[in-house]
């Protein structure tokens, strides 16, 4: 059986703790994801998708519960530890691409490697290979503002793969793209998934996109209300 890459147990996330307005965004979320899975998390806005993504991506700490990422407990981590974990274990892909302005495509892809302390030569070589993988090698010296939305997202995917993280975390990656470009980006995810067997977590409110993944988790009012495999590929594990 594949390794448990994400294991969440009874995760709570509350805001305004101790005040009359205390908000319970996530309520006793338990979720296990195995290495190589391609799953989607869907739910209406306000359901806690984004907060769940923040916790999966180690951008935020849960109020209660335990979260093991790639076998490592995250509850006792310092801010620097969290930065290092994000750098090496997670590849973020955002709806708005979030490429660094005034840095060309190559520099953008190199950035996570720079933070990981990879040498300049190796950075450039690897970044070029990744841009080739996403079909953007011929535009590696273009600034973000010289690229179309689809091209930006492809560069962002290359950047997410820079440090070869086990998990890709994509937040509405096609949300800002037209349907044709969006499909091309989804195809790229499928390609990455089938070639590198990375765990891909797709956060979306689009059921069509979710249907392309192997497993759909539905979130509502901070709780997982549904967790089922799609027809695509057998998923062995259900939420506990």
């Amino acid at each position, binding site marked *: 059986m594949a390794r448990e890459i994400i294991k969440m147990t009874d995760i709570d996330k509350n805001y305004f703790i101790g005040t009359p307005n205390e908000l319970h965004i996530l309520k006793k979320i338990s979720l296990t994801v195995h290495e190589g899975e391609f799953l989607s998390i869907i739910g209406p806005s306000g359901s806690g998708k*984004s907060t769940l993504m*923040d916790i999966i*991506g180690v*951008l*935020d700490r849960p109020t209660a519960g335990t979260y093991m990422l790639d076998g490592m407990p995250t509850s006792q981590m310092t*801010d*620097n530890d969290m*930065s*290092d974990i*994000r*750098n*090496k274990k997670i590849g*973020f892909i*955002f709806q*708005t691409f*979030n490429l*660094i*302005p*005034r*840095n060309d495509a190559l520099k953008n892809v190199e*950035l*996570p490697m*720079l*933070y*990981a302390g990879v040498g300049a030569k190796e950075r450039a070589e690897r970044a070029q290979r990744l841009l080739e993988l996403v079909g953007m090698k011929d535009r590696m010296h273009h600034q973000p503002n010289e690229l179309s939305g689809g091209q930006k997202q492809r560069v962002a995917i290359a*950047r997410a793969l820079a*440090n070869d993280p086990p998990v890709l975390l994509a937040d509405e990656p096609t949300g800002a793209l037209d349907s044709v470009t969006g499909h091309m980006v989804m195809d790229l995810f499928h390609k990455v998934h089938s070639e590198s067997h990375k765990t891909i977590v797709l956060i979306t409110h689009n059921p069509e996109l979710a249907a392309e993944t192997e497993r759909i988790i539905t979130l509502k009012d901070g709780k997982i209300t549904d967790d089922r495999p799609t027809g695509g590929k057998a998923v062995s594990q259900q939420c506990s």
Partner: protein
Amino acid sequence: MFLKENISLALAGLKSNKMRSFLTMLGIIIGIGSVIAIVTIGNGVTAKVTDALSNIGANVIQVYVTPRDAKNTTTDITVGGNNMSNSDMITDDQINAFHKRFSGEISCIGLQEGLGDGKVENGHRYSNITAVGVNPEYKDVSNVKMSKGRFLMNRDIDANRRVAVVSDKLVSNMFRKNTDPMGKEVSIEVNGWDETFTIVGVYKYEHNTFGGAAASQKDTRTSLYIPISVAKEQANFQNYSYFLLKTKSLSGSQVFSKKIDSYFSKIYAGNQNYTCQSYNMENMMSTVSSVMGTISKAIAAIAAIALLVGGIGVMNIMLVSVTERTREIGTRKALGARSSYIRAQFLVEAVIICLIGGAIGILVGILLAWIGVTMIKVKLVISAPVILFSVGFSMLIGIFFGYYPAKKASQLDPIDALRYE
């Protein structure tokens, strides 16, 4: 941390916002520029004054009769002040007694009796002069350099001879080339007094540092030396308001100067209005440097204000930059940048702004200094320590005023920063 990347990032950022970058730097440019300009001009002036003073000689002491209420600076000296009477001045007897008393220290005493400004004329040829009656020792004390003939001698004085020592400038003004001026007669006109003198010597004229630069080469006024005994016939006063002396030893003029002051203060104890004050190279230098020091302090205060304002400008624009780039900061954090990396990035950017501003300021300052020194005709003395200090100081401003915005950037919550609209 990632210094090279941060520098190129900062430069790219500045380039994409040229106008804003320039305006941000302006405060630093003005601050550093004014410091460099003033210090450079000040150095030029100091060098020139020092040069002029050392021409006087380290072992020369000047003794003036000065009003008691004047402040103790050389600038307040009024030689032969308005209402100074003959009895307030130093007599020949007093000088002789003084010379005898300090014969071990004094090498010689130079006396002079100024008659005022006038002209030497011969048809259409003329030369501006200042007629000065002097004693033979004056040459030695005042460092007059002879180029031809001899200086005045005791027998000229004793016999009241109408002889003159003139400058080479006067010779070139008055005579055709290759004419030997020796033995030639010149008619001197000073304050209505008109007499003919025979030239016995020519001295080498050295451009007077303190003289005005306005007069043309031809109109330059030079000293014409005549026997002091002859000058006294024409002067209102027989006594001296001023004399020069040369000490035997090259050092210790400061100490000797004090002895002179106490010697003459006894003589002038009974005089209500006047006293004697001696000046030597050392205390003239200290006067000059204290004046320069005061000016420098005033300028430093102005520059400090300019730099403070400039630094606040840098801080302001860095805070704007942090806000504008909140999303970028969030992205960088999501990609694994530690807080310290973000802090370093923004700190480097602030330092780069200040360093570039400082560098432009140095260039502007040197340019201003160059214009300034050309106008007041002194040498351009560029001081490496001042430039290094300016570079260092602009860097410090960058660090000081960049730290808060950088810290603010580094402490942004990645979640809020990522979703910042």
